[in-house]
């Protein structure tokens, strides 16, 4: 018997793969893409020409130049004369700060409002209904203007009375009691950041080992936190809760939120709490009453029903919608520019106006927001895959 070995089909080359990717109409498609590239090139060429005419060098070299403007508030130290890079970084940190705190507060308030809206109490659910309708059907910018004018209309520090003895609402901002650990080798924010990084590393290594469960996940974050705090206390740091107090014409001590920051945070929280409340309501209502009845028949009590039966199913509806709310919140924090909070957009705008490098500044702006968006949606997609239905193909 003659055995012939036939050569297999040749492996598809790069050209074949491009051809398969293009599908039909290759010439038309390539012409379209070329046209898009041509228009883009034409625009960029015009921008370069305009910049050359006014004597501005295109490129990102301006970032190391000194920025001669002040920034109202910044998580990192910034003085006029520091580099544009540092100014933009300060803006980015401000954006991240307000978005992160806004997401947390909006989630907490949104869940509370959403659950309150499901209450059988007519007065409460009616009130929630109106709150949500009014918040959803007026522009966020209008709400920010309103909160801003409210923040400006608060009494001066001297006349301000303390809420619960420690919180001052004044026209110079909101004063909150602050927790601090004094005297240790590193401050509280640095310690918390260290603990968070250690927690993320631990959680990731647990995940790689396939041992990540909700309980081990919580432990992965709690253990470094406890360790860092114990280390600080052992090295001589003393915890202090510092309450703001009136001294002279101003309030000293504690944590001061500027009126702009407080207004922006309140506006974002209120608007997105209403949106998240609607999502939570829809999620919980999407779980049929049969589920409740069946769980009751099995002898579970209300807390168990919510934790074991309703929430896992409701989260499947809630998670993807909340993700897009978080993304919207981050993008909408850019409205800060209208009320004078120095976020990324407002600093990029100032940079563009003072240097004339508007194209580069906007590339930085759009690139940063794209990166934040893609990172956040990747993170939430991972989480969503964990709570989504298992064993079904979507």
């Amino acid at each position, binding site marked *: 018997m003659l055995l012939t070995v036939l050569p297999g089909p040749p492996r598809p080359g790069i050209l074949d793969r491009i051809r*398969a*990717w*293009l*599908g*039909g*109409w*290759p010439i038309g*498609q*390539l012409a*379209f*893409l070329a046209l*898009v590239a041509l228009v883009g090139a034409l*625009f*960029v060429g*015009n*921008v370069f020409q*305009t*910049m050359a005419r006014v004597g501005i060098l295109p490129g990102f070299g301006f970032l190391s130049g000194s920025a001669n403007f002040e920034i109202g508030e910044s998580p990192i130290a910034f003085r006029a004369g520091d580099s544009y890079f540092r100014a933009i970084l300060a803006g980015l940190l401000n954006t991240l700060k307000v978005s992160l705190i806004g997401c947390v507060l909006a989630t907490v308030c949104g869940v509370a409002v959403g659950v309150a809206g499901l*209450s*059988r*109490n*007519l*007065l*409460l659910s009616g*009130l929630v209904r109106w709150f949500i*309708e*009014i918040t*959803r*059907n*007026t*522009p*966020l*910018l*209008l709400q920010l*203007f*309103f909160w801003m*004018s409210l923040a400006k209309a608060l009494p001066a520090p001297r006349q301000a009375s303390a809420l619960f003895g420690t919180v001052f609402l004044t026209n110079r901002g909101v004063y909150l009691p602050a927790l601090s650990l004094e005297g240790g080798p590193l401050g509280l924010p640095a310690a918390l950041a260290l603990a968070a990084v250690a927690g993320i590393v631990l959680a990731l290594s647990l995940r790689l080992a396939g041992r990540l469960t909700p309980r081990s996940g919580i432990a992965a974050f709690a253990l470094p936190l406890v360790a860092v705090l114990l280390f600080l206390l052992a090295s001589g740091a003393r915890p202090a809760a510092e309450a703001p107090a009136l001294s002279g014409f101003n309030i000293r001590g504690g944590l001061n939120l500027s009126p702009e920051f407080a207004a922006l945070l309140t506006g974002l929280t209120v608007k997105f709490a209403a949106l998240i409340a609607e999502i939570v309501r829809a999620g919980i209502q999407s779980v049929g009453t049969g589920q409740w009845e069946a769980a009751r028949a099995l002898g579970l009590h209300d807390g168990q029903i919510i934790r074991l039966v309703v929430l896992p199913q409701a989260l499947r509806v809630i998670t993807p919608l909340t993700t897009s709310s978080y993304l919207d919140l981050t*993008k*909408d924090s*850019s*409205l800060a*520019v*209208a009320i004078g909070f120095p976020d990324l*957009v407002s600093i990029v*705008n100032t940079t*563009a106006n003072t240097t004339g490098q*508007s*194209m580069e500044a*906007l590339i930085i*702006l*759009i690139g940063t*927001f*794209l990166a934040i*968006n*893609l990172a956040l949606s990747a993170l939430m997609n991972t989480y969503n895959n964990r709570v989504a239905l298992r064993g079904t193909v979507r």
Partner: protein
Amino acid sequence: MTAALSRILTTLRSGLFGTRANTLVTVATVLLLSQVVPPLVRWAVLDATFGGDAAACTRAGACWAFVAAKLRFILFAFYPPGLQWRPALVILLLAAILVASALPRLWGRPLLVAWPLTILACWLLMQGAFTATPIPSNQWGGLPVTLFVWAVCFAAATPIAVLLALARRSTLGGLRTFSVLYIELMRGTPMVGILYVAMLILPMALPDSLSVDKMLRAIVMVTLFWAAYIAEVIRAGLQAIPPGQSEAATALGLGYWRTQRLVVLPQALRIVIPGMVNLAIGFLLATSLLAVIGIFDLLNAARASAADPNWLGFYNEAYLVVAAVYFVICFGASRYSQWLEGKLAGGRTCPRTA
């Protein structure tokens, strides 16, 4: 009559005081309301000033006299007062075409023709066609600008969005990749950033011979921006159409475009209409961002009205008025969307029992 009354009373009693926890919640809510409502009523009604000039207004209460005096400015901003019948007519025209589009009975080809014509008429009216002096767009303002930008951008973005959605689902890799990149780029960028592109980059990017005014630049960029959002909604509708539909159409010998136009799109667009209405509500609220680049839309006009030296600082009253305008339009539209959703669903599945 008495039966209905007693039924309402029973509902109220069980709804407010049904259980002990429920009674507690009611009491707590009433306590909260008693803290908030009386000062508001005092400000808005009891201490308010309803007539006269700024001197008559006290800071303790609302100054509705301000609203009466500046309503015209809030609605039309800096448009030449003698010609304000033009923007008023624009509002009426746009309201008419929106109401007509809202009635499923009128959906059809005439409406598709009426839209561009209405927009053209509005544009001509606003820029003062057939008068001696054309009115530059930096004098436009108030409600007509908000409605006009909204209607134009939404109407122009929809066809682009249909093409983007089709491209994103097509087998042609080049177009698909372009569409994905375009949509993700637009959706990842805040609208403020897009407006800054219109404001700062476009004038530099366009050839010198071509100078386009700010309003038009903003309209073009916002259209391109919204198209990405609408495309995603339409894509959801396209995905909901079973592949058997287009396979059947292909088997009947229809080409790609005729398959899409006659078979797939009519079904897909029908599904996404409620989603599009919700999107349109969000867009109307988003037009207020035009204030950031200095266009006097409704919100910015209200803010400017409180900067009038004769009526300085009545921001809260101005904001309340425009909040009411936005609320009426958007609340109405969202109720319409719910009604439409029920109606469209009712037409497709078995008749509802209720």
